[in-house]
């Protein structure tokens, strides 16, 4: 999963380099959402703080 997201980020950079604005914007949004979903998957431990 992690490697796939890195490949997605690289594809975003390549779309930017080639001047494809819509594709770059779409890939950026998908990458950002994928990063957030991956964080949600890993953020399972309880924080050791008392509020």
């Amino acid at each position: 999963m992690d490697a796939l997201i890195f490949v997605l980020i690289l594809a975003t950079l390549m779309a930017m380099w080639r001047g494809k604005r819509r594709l770059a914007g779409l890939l950026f949004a998908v990458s950002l959402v994928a990063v957030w979903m991956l964080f949600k998957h890993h953020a399972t431990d309880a924080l050791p703080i008392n509020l």
Partner: protein
Amino acid sequence: MTLFRLCIAITCILATCAVLLGALWAQFGQGEFPCPLCIIQRMAMMLAALGPAWLLCRAARGPVDAHDFAQCYACSILAALVGGTVSARQVLLHIAPGDPGYGAPMFGMHLYTWAFVVFVVVVLASAIQMLFLPKRSEAHRVGLGARLSVLLLGAIIAVNAVAVFVESGFHWYLPDNPTSNRLIEELRSEVSEPSAGERESGVEPP
């Protein structure tokens, strides 16, 4: 003025690349395996650097205006907010007294604490850039330095993709506390395991 703005964009990319290279040095030079949250922070840092990189790519193809600047730096701010959330969570995970933290500290702070500082700086720098947007579109020749900085960012992303694939192997997710490169371990165990024919004939593998 556009040249000055493009120089700032190059500086933002190179500064992020320096931080990412530092993380790679900690991984390969010091033998520290990055945890899943560290990897996510690297991803967010790369996405934050894509903002100024996109600006340079647009400037290389024609005049850039206030809309281009705002769109690119808004991307950086969004990515920095995601990254800042992740690094803040990792800081909180190790905030209890007596917790040694994850990995060795560098210049007095752990890498995830430095990452939080970097994300705050990215938000501040992008916001300041957006305060001084150009009033009209301006064209400027994008030089070799700008192209090289974007290429360097691309190379760092590619190296991270390979490194994390070696670390995770053929698994969807990294373990919470990785201690080895799972791809290499799996390939080694594949090689050392006897084949079905060898098991039936009772031949010991070399």
